[in-house]
């Protein structure tokens, strides 16, 4: 079953590469990118934007290619809210990069967001389960 969750407001688009024919688009719900970034930072520790993008692509399992620039608004938003904090560090390959780490406020916010996501996802899933019967 295919479905579109379309959100016009500040939607973030995960899209397949143009070469793979019919592009299945999945628009993320607003705020879910925040959740994804925060979760990635808790599981992996401090990461730079490229690292976060690579992690999301890896998790996505299918040949999705994230338009990596779309991460930046989320990073600004989270940093302005005080949920993450960026510092300049050097990578293993000896390149400089801005590493983002989750703050205490960010950890609290993540718990809150996970809770909210599970509740709304649970509702949608139950709804779909009853309808497919």
């Amino acid at each position: 079953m295919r479905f579109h969750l379309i959100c016009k407001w500040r939607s973030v688009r995960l899209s397949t590469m143009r070469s793979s024919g019919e592009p299945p688009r999945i628009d993320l719900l607003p705020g879910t990118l925040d959740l994804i970034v925060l979760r990635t930072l808790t599981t992996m520790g401090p990461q730079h934007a490229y690292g976060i993008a690579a992690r999301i692509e890896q998790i996505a399992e299918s040949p999705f290619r994230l338009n990596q620039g779309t991460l930046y608004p989320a990073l600004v938003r989270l940093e302005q809210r005080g949920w993450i904090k960026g510092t300049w560090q050097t990578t293993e390959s000896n390149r400089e990069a801005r590493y983002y780490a989750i703050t205490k406020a960010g950890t609290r916010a993540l718990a809150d967001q996970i809770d909210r996501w599970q509740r709304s996802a649970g509702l949608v899933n139950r709804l779909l389960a009853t309808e497919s019967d």
Partner: protein
Amino acid sequence: MGHVTRFFRRLLNIMRPGRDEAGLERELAAHVLLLEDEYRRRGLSADDARRAARLALGGLEQTKERHRDARTFRWLDDVRRDAIYAVRMLRRHPIAAATAALSLAIGIGLNAAVFSVVDWVLLRPLPYPASHELVRVFTAGTAPVTGPSALIHDEFVVFGQATAFRQTAAFTTTTRVIAGAGIEPAHIVVARVAGDLFGTLGVYPDVGRAFNDDEVAGRTPAVVIGHDLWQRRFAGDRGIAGRIVKIDGAPHTIVGVMPSSRGYPGDADVWRPLTPAERADDDRELAMLGRLRSDTTAARASAEIATLAQIASKGTRTAWADDLQRTDAGAVSAALHALFGAAMLTLLMACANVAALVGARGADRAGEIAVRGALGATRARVLGQLITESLVLAVAGGILGLLFGRWALSGLVAMAPVGVPRLAEITVDGRIVGVGVAATMLTGLAVGLVPALRLSRQMETSTVNRIGLYRTTTRPTGRRVLVLVQIAIAVVLTTGAGLLTRSLQHLVTIDHGFAADHLLAVDLYLRGAFTGDARQLFRDLVANCETLPGVDAVAVSMRLPTQIPGVRARVQLLGERDLDSPATLRPISPNYFDTVGIPLTAGRRFQVTDNERAPRVAIVNATFVRDLLAGRPPVGTRLTTPLIDATVSIVGVVADVTPAGERDRSALYVPIDQLSIGGGYLIVRAQGDPRSILPALTTRLRAVAPNLAVDRVRRVADGLEESRALARFSTQVAATFSALALLLAVIGVYGLTAGEVSARWRELAVRLALGASHRGILWNVVRPCVAILAAGAAIGVVGAVGVGPALASLLHGVDPADAPTIVAAPLLLGAVGAAAAVLAAARVLRADPAATLRGE
């Protein structure tokens, strides 16, 4: 919490644009490098890796834009950027910008000032609870028909029964003298009250209490005093209740103090209930107030009391109720409406000027707009930018305008006639600043919107390749219409000012019938302060004051020469029936005519020997001779009148007095020694400025009569001024407005001509190079302006004739369609406008045409 922090961080980022820009640049560069590393590791060439990295990021610039969007508020940032750009644009054309800002400052400032007065006097509710329910009641005769008048007590009682009123009260004011232990005798305005005035208004004393039943019934004399008197005479003593003061010699207990600026009527110093005797007399002197029930209207109340009045008067009188605030504003309201109209017209002219300036610059900017469009700016974005520019201009004008307005307001208040209610309250407060800001913004939109729409429309049609080669050659029709409108408005304003000036001129050159300059009048009020022989007191006062240095002459009179009405008495010529109409009795001391400067035309003056033991004598005025004597020789005629105990001989004739043009009534001047008076005025003619003798005069009066209140001393000329004050005020303001309007119109014409000349400069340069004469070119350029001037002036004249009747109530001795004014105003405008046009054209033509042609 995080959301609030973010909001402020975004806001903060607007203040410091570009602060995070370097960090972002660095971060993105690092990101691209990491991606490149990855792609190279996968085996791509360096070039391919770089391209793939950028693709994966989704475009460097787009990412930056996304970052900025999230970092700040984009629209606010745009506004900031546009504002900075606008300021830069304005600074590049400082003269045009300054002209526009000053035009707006004049328009906005005048409106703010005039609006403050209009707001306080006409719009703001009176300072009483539910003040819209308050009405003033009038009555008038229907058979015979008379003008609106005050009420007698019986009418007040009858009207008070109307069901439309929840509560009613009435009052009448008189001047009395207050005295008491530790208080210097002083004149005060006493409001004598019937009914519950405080209850009707909904305002009560804030120190002490209102009257109790005993006091209302008049059994115990009590007063409530006003806030000003309390501060002035009793040093704001909060324990004042219970203190005894003497009013006209009779003791009264102070029971309360009214709150500041809340007493009604505004000029009252003291309130006391009417005594039973005062209620019983049928003096038509009560001003009645009513508070309507919340479910009714003034019209319904009017219908009801009209019926009551007709029944009570057996069909000879009617009555009606009218909104209290409107009634109080009275004649001032017409002047204020005229003023407000003039201020609005001035603002319109200012807007026209600025719109013309903005529009003219628009022609130069078509290229810039086209480039912006080609680079991807949307029409909305360009529109926003252009309007921001107008708003920046308007804000500059608005700030200047509010400063100018404060100054203009203090001028207005200083010039305003005393009759304007609530003058002391007028201040610039948040409400007025708010209106000023709104006016500014609206002005900005008004002047910016039309040119901006036109320019941005051009953006869609214009082609970039034309930039720099051709200027837009559209005829400046819009601009011409604007200037035309300006001229018309200026003609209307100038005509109005001209009419008012001629009216004032008429009032100033009026022959009052006496010499008002150098005259001082001291109120002498004897009741309660003096019990001896008044005649002797007056003689003493005159004798003592005559010897003061700087004093020319001194007299005593019951009335001032500015006061035509007075005590009227029937007159019977000896051996004949009563004369048709009564004469006004004017008791005076012997040297009154010399002191005041009324010429004697026949017979003799009064002498000291015309005392109480001598035969009764009188001097009549010219109107008396003309209207009552019907050709009999005045001197030697003998008559009787009820107020004088014996037959009176006319011994002389004097000219009429005509203060401020008022017509005199037939008057009989009699010596105060033969018709005793209980009070009047000491009239002093000074040799120089009457104010210079004031201190010595006051001291001398106190020495002669220590119990007398001599605090009320005024210049007789001030009494004449009062009647002219409204006219003078309207004239000064209108003259100021028309001068400013003239200035704005001149700026408009100058700008129009200069604009047209520079737009046609290439063509004109070619003509000059081919040998056209400067004079011919000048005429060619100025001609359309002259046509506009003529058309504008013609429309203005029509407008002025149409507006004239609205001014009629402010004009004295001048017809609203006064021909000289209506001819002069457009001529003046035309002459000044033509001069401005020639000046503007000549300035541009002074440049060298050859240089221009070579430059292209």
